[in-house]
């Protein structure tokens, strides 16, 4: 129960006492009364109960310090969770994806418990003592490493997003989901710790003919993907750390492959084997699944990097402007990212793409990483169609929906990165809407 502040009827008797007792009063109240004269203040309808009444958490002991040996979010944040939809599953909740609540994320790091989770046969639990990584094929010195041995290599930490290539596929035929979580939640970001693969390979005598690397998981589905050697020797990593703790099982504990900026499924989890060859493998995931069927009936396979992309995360359907008053100052903020490089520019449109303004980038601007953008407006209580358009340092400019469909048709659910945004009504409600010519 909340308790009223003691002495609601404040009668200051001397100056010292007055300051002590009015410390919680607003500046305007103090300004309107004579500071030097004794004053009696009576309860007012302007008084905020959250200030005037004793907060229950201020009058009793909190939880025991060791209540949770692994800390949990505030119970008030219990709705800040990943969500699933049966439309996105293959008939069960083993081979499916849970969407990350981007609307409640801050900065450029996803908390580990909210990292989107895509698996092809459930989250497997690998015994770290029985973990082995085998590296073989076209190299002089094949290698087997235990987890302990792998972690003896000097570690490096990098902030990178991981995105499923199907992210955004839920909307490009037309808007479908009226929330940010299912429009763009098939991605998350973390600081990953591990060792660059080229550091490990340096002393293994990789053959010149080794043009492809197979990465294979140890899970039920034995997720296998072929990676070109150019990526392996650029920025590929074997990672065991995620945001300062061991990888979550959902992210491939104890070791996953990290291919910065590339399709999520290539970042093979529960890693078991790396084999080098002169030929690509054509695994099931790179022939039957992660391919892009084009209008002419031919498909692109081995499609690797995630395109330049952006999304406004505030406002969004889950974070509307309905509580704003006309004239309030409000920030439009969101995420921009590219698997091809570093975000260079983000433009914002308030009128559905007729006119654009360059937004500010803020915080760390890193390669193949989420980048925050910001643009501040005064809310005029008028309808808006908000859009964002990102450009990266590889020169890739985010295309319109029309342009993307013109180029690749509507089939092929992957790599959909067109400009999308939100319609804001004059009441500040936010709806998913597309702009088409």
């Amino acid at each position, binding site marked *: 129960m909340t308790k009223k502040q003691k002495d609601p009827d404040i009668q200051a008797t001397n100056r010292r006492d007055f300051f002590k007792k009015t410390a919680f009063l607003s500046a305007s109240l103090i300004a309107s009364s004579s500071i030097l004269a004794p004053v009696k203040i009576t309860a007012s309808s302007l008084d905020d109960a959250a200030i005037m009444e004793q907060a229950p958490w201020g009058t009793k002991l909190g939880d025991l310090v060791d209540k949770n040996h692994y800390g949990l979010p505030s119970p008030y944040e219990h709705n800040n969770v990943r*969500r699933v939809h049966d439309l996105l599953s293959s008939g069960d909740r083993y081979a499916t994806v849970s969407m990350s609540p981007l609307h409640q994320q801050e900065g450029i790091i996803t908390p580990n418990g909210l990292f989107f989770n895509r698996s092809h046969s459930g989250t497997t639990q690998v015994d770290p003592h029985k973990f082995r990584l085998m590296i073989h094929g076209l190299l002089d010195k094949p290698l087997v490493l235990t987890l302990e041995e792998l972690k003896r290599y000097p570690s490096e930490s990098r902030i990178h997003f991981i995105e499923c290539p199907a992210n955004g596929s839920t909307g490009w035929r037309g808007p479908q989901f009226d929330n940010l979580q299912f429009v763009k939640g098939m991605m998350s970001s973390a600081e990953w710790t591990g060792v660059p693969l080229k550091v490990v390979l340096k002393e293994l005598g990789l053959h010149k003919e080794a043009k492809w690397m197979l990465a294979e998981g140890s899970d039920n589905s034995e997720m296998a993907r072929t990676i*070109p050697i150019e990526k392996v020797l650029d920025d590929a990593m074997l990672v065991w750390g995620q945001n300062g703790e061991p990888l979550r099982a959902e992210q491939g504990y104890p070791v996953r492959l990290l291919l910065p900026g590339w399709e999520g499924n290539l970042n093979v989890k529960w890693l078991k084997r790396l084999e080098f060859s002169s030929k690509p493998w054509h695994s099931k995931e790179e022939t*039957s699944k992660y391919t892009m069927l084009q209008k002419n009936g031919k498909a692109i396979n081995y499609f690797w990097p995630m395109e330049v992309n952006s999304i406004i995360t505030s406002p969004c359907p889950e974070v509307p402007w309905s509580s704003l008053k006309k004239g309030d100052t409000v920030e439009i903020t969101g995420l921009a990212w590219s698997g*091809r490089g570093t975000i260079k520019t983000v433009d914002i449109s308030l009128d559905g793409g007729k006119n*654009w303004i360059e937004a500010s980038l803020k915080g760390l601007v890193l390669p193949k990483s989420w980048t925050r953008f910001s643009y501040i407006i005064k809310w005029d209580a008028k309808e808006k169609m908000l859009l964002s358009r990102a450009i990266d340092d590889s020169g890739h400019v985010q295309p319109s929906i029309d*342009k993307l469909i013109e180029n690749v048709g*509507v089939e092929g659910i992957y790599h959909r990165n067109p400009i999308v945004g939100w319609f804001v009504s004059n009441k500040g409600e936010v709806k998913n809407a597309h702009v088409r010519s």
Partner: protein
Amino acid sequence: MHMFALKKTHVFLILSCMLLASYTSAGTDVKLKKNVDGSVIYPRTNTHYSLYLLNKQNISEFNHGRTPTLNEIKAWNKDVMPDGEGLPVGEGSVEQGDELYSAQCLSCHGDFGAGGSGYPTLTGGQGSLKNQLLQAGDEPPMRTIGSYWPYASTLFWYIQSSMPFNNPKSLSNNETYALVAYLLSVNEIKIDGIELDDEYVLTKEKFLKIKMPNVDGFYPVSPNRSNLKEQRPPLAQGTRCMKNCKTQEIIFIKNEITGFDPKITSKKDLPKIKKQDNDEAIKEIYSQSCAACHSNDALGAPVVGDLEQWSEVIKKGVKQVYTNAIVGINAMPPRGGNMDLSDKDLENLIDYMIKVSK
């Protein structure tokens, strides 16, 4: 190549940290090298990778781990490549495959691979790949083993390593041959011009002659990559129009999709205690309000977990036990001394204590 002019802030960044300037891509004129995927290659020096600092000691010999034995490599190297590398010896007939399929695959993939229960359809769709589902009623393209998969090697490898879904790595080489034979036959794929009837026996030799209908259905990736130019350009390049751009029509959601799990809400409230959490909640109250006396017999209270003592208690009838808890009995004060506990709480607590004592 840079499309946009150097900005003042970036000039400042370059002047104030000369060392980093050559690694910051934004706003500098450093010529960017690109990888096969079209992405920028950020140089890695002895001290930096992009904006990240590195250990400068330049040690590259670690000698961690050991050489795997040949048996170990053989045990894990189970992949099969399009040219047959890795394909084991074995044989299986269409008929045997049919039996295996009915027993282990049909429940998910349907009769003759026709699909169902949300799992992939394995047959049909040949000739459908140019279809575009533009509006309701259009026939979509169907990507099945027969219409889409370019190589049979993938089929063998995937079935043996990952199927059946709930019991993978359980099929022998011969069983896998049989299943491949069955799946090719229901897709009406011929080997060397020969139809695969029930008696057809697939062997390694015959397998190497399989040509899948859609083998040429993919854009090639140059295997030697003699041309290191971007092999995967962006699917679509946008334009950076800033003023009076083409006007657009706003399209709203026509049929909104619901059914998210859990329901979409951003409410910041306390979670409701779900039914299945009730036991947990009761356990929590028990440990706070009852366990001090009821967890050992020092105070004469019936000990939770002691069937004999609780049998004696229950003899009075459970209603009487509830009442005793409310008004107090022997050394136990009313409501065990915790006046915040409702009658219902006490009943739940007693039920819990009886349950765990059984």
